[in-house]
């Protein structure tokens, strides 16, 4: 009986942890669903020339500049 209780508690604990996960919310379109032309990534052209980290850093800086509490201090 105690084993059953422990096992059910363990299952409940593991199931509870499942809520901590994050499923990707961006839809990945399978080949053949989108019928239009392919598009390039925003960092694949000059001035970034494929440097994704540099592009992400630029976007992060821009995003933070919208926060005037950070800008002012």
């Amino acid at each position: 009986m105690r084993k059953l209780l422990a096992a059910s508690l363990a299952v409940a604990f593991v199931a509870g942890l499942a809520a901590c996960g994050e499923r990707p919310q961006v839809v990945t379109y399978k080949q053949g669903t989108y019928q239009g032309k392919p598009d390039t990534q925003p960092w694949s052209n000059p001035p970034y020339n494929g440097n994704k980290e540099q592009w992400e850093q630029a976007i992060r800086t821009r995003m933070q500049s919208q926060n005037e509490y950070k800008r002012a201090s």
Partner: protein
Amino acid sequence: MARMKFLCDAERCIECNGCVTACKQEHEIPWGVNRRRVVTINDGVPGERSISVACMHCSDAPCAAVCPVDCFYKTEDGVVLHDKDLCIGCGYCFYACPFGAPQFPQAGAFGQRGKMDKCTFCAGGPEADRSEAEFKKYGRNRLAEGKLPACAEMCATKALLGGDGDVLADIYRERVTVRGRGGEVWGWATAYGPAPGKGQAPAAPAQQPGGQKS
């Protein structure tokens, strides 16, 4: 991987329509098409609220779901874009969109509907980045220049925020903490009404008197 979103802080929006103008100017949008617009609720009544609305770049976009020619796609950063070469201008996406984002320019003398046009989160479309073809069809590609949408970046009161949803949530949370109120504008009570016996929903305009502006 960012999830690009817009967030409009109704406590800060002053209905200046600067975002609308910035969008029009940035992309040279034709007459009759408004990728972005400002909606005012309870206009003229004390406690009125304005909010800037455009394509919300839905995670599961209904426009893409109903498009009969499958011209919509979503970028790695969560921006919903479409291929104008494929669009047939049927208008299904307009009916499906809860925000009225898809716009249809007049294509002829008799008011025929042209190909759909909508907010691109300043990310262009399926043409070579920053090419003339891309600008003509979809407008300027600011994202490829490492910039955020023009509407959000030029907003004078920083009511309109654009960027990764997580970052925007952090900025908004900090504002609400400093203000000491306003968090109730979004959330359960707004969507589903107040709990039984708790009176009006906190977001109701009657409970927001003119004072206490931050």
